[in-house]
């Protein structure tokens, strides 16, 4: 089961910064700056990083919701940027996206049964006659009740809406789901429900996930491989157990130590980073992390570290490792 499903190579996405009376481009936000990811079928790749590090942009650029600036995205061997609109549309069912915000990703004026059903109709996965049955089927799979089929999104709670989003994606029988922080808007008690659902579905359907999160503990629970992003660049990737037992990059270490642990009065040795995340429009030269890195040395300020393999399928971009 190690068939490559998604292959992202050297992906870059720069957003122009417009300003002034004429909306002139005055610079670029390097939201994604040279990222490579490989996901095998049935695998879960966790992408962590702080706000603004470009996680969502990676997801959206893979799905061609934005145009890329550079790089290559191959899904099942097909270059997604090499196909035309209609071909892309026909590829879409196999790769789906689940959004962070369950409130804004559902159209408030479309009944959920219709929302789930229309995608099947548009891709010829159901006919007008049997679409309702199909919808009920996926709803059931996602833990939604049949009697809710004709309700509007506002009649659901956040957790239920996230289920609807998942059901809508599942209705297309995808191979890959890109989940963009699907649980961070939810309460703890509901988070667990959704995470469990993700796991169950993976078992049943053999799905692969690109699971985007800023919460390392969730990623540890769910993913087989993890990548850590900072300011648009990948800092470290490794298989889960490797990463959590042996984090190499100072940023990864800081992230891990910053997570508050629900054990009172536990005196941990903690790395509190100084300063703020720099703007991606104007990232520091050299290693992007050097401005906050407690271990930074001179070379970090001038030279960009290479993304190296350090054994055990563990890659890291740091001069001092």
């Amino acid at each position, binding site marked *: 089961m190690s068939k490559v499903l998604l292959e992202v190579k050297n992906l870059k996405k720069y957003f122009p910064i417009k*300003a*002034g*009376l*004429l909306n*002139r481009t005055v610079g670029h936000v390097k939201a994604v700056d040279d990222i490579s990811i490989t996901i095998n079928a049935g695998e879960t790749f966790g992408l962590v990083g702080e706000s603004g590090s470009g996680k969502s942009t990676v997801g959206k650029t893979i799905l061609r919701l934005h145009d890329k600036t550079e790089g290559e995205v191959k899904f099942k061997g097909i270059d997604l940027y090499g196909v035309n609109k209609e071909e892309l549309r026909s590829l879409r069912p196999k790769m789906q996206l689940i959004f962070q915000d369950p409130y804004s990703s559902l159209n408030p004026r479309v009944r959920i049964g219709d929302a789930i059903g229309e995608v099947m109709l548009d891709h010829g996965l159901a006919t007008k006659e049997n679409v309702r049955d199909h919808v009920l089927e996926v709803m059931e799979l996602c833990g939604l009740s049949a009697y809710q089929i004709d309700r509007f999104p506002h009649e659901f709670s956040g957790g239920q809406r996230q289920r609807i989003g998942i059901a809508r994606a599942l209705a297309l029988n995808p191979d890959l789901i890109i989940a963009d922080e699907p649980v961070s808007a939810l309460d703890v008690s509901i988070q667990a429900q959704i995470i469990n659902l993700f796991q169950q579905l993976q078992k049943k359907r053999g799905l692969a996930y690109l699971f985007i999160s800023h919460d390392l503990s969730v990623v540890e629970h769910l993913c087989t491989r993890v990548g850590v992003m900072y300011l648009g660049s990948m800092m470290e990737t490794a298989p889960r157990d490797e990463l959590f037992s042996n984090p190499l990059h100072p940023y990864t270490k800081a992230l891990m130590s910053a997570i508050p642990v629900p054990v009172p009065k536990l005196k941990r040795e903690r790395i509190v980073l100084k300063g703020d995340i720099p703007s991606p429009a104007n990232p520091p030269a050299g290693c992007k992390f050097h401005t906050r890195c407690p271990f930074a040395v001179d070379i970090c300020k001038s030279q960009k570290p290479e993304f190296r393999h350090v054994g055990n399928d563990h890659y890291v971009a740091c001069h001092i490792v």
Partner: protein
Amino acid sequence: MSTYLLRRFIYMVLILLGASMLIFFLYALTPGDFVSNNMNLSAERKAELREIYGLSKPLLERYMTWISHIFQGDFGYSLAQQKPVLELFNDYVWNSFLLAIVATFFTWFFAVVVGVISAYKQYSLFDTLVMIGIFAAMSIPSFFIGLFFIKIFAVDLHLLPPGGMTSTGSNAVGLAYVEDVIKHMTLPVIIMVLLGVGSLTRYFRSNMLDVIKQDYIRTARAKGLRERAVLYRHALKNAMLPAITLVGFELPGLFGGSIILEKIFNWPGIGQLYMSSFTVRDYPLLMGFTMFLAILTVIGTLISDILYHTTDPRVRL
């Protein structure tokens, strides 16, 4: 920055060029011309006059002469008024401007005050009354309310003059003159304010409603600020911001005159002149004036943009 301005300028010129064509050809399409106005003229004399006025030349040629003159700042010579168009503007526009600027000032003033209070007291009796009042003001035909006011305040009560801008034959100067003009403009200004204040109040009210729901208003209260400071220091500033851009859009209105009200109140403004020129098809004046407004509109848009980019710290360059 200078390339910005250059591009912006080019864009303005293009829009104006488009507007000039539209204006010219619209008027060219309008049935009748200055000469056809006079029934007593024989056909030959009409042809002769058309020749003198250049009305017989091909459309395109006429347009080219007209626009090239405009570029040189020459808006032409009014046929009916026998005066250069710009001179006429100078005679009339300022009167319209006076009326408009005063009315606009009061309109904004009342709109802000009433809008703020009624937003603050949303759903209160005051708010409901304001809403009804606003709609009421919005639903009266202006010519009618004009007549009504003249009848009541000028003819019956003798409180205010029935029309005009100064007392006829008056030689008043200085303060007495100002007083005279103020008296004469009171009624038209009241009506203009009445007609305009409604939509603006609604606008401010809804801006204000949005703003007072914002978190930073709660923060201001949590700091222990007085309610008045919260409203006028913290809320109003934010509520005004989107309105600031409207200022630019008011520009053409300030100089455009009000056809109906000027007519009813005998106000010596450009709107009246425009109307009377229209009926005799005094094209140089009509096109010149319309072009003048188009230029003001474009400048107004520019001002709006600049204001938008300078008043709100969030969008500053």
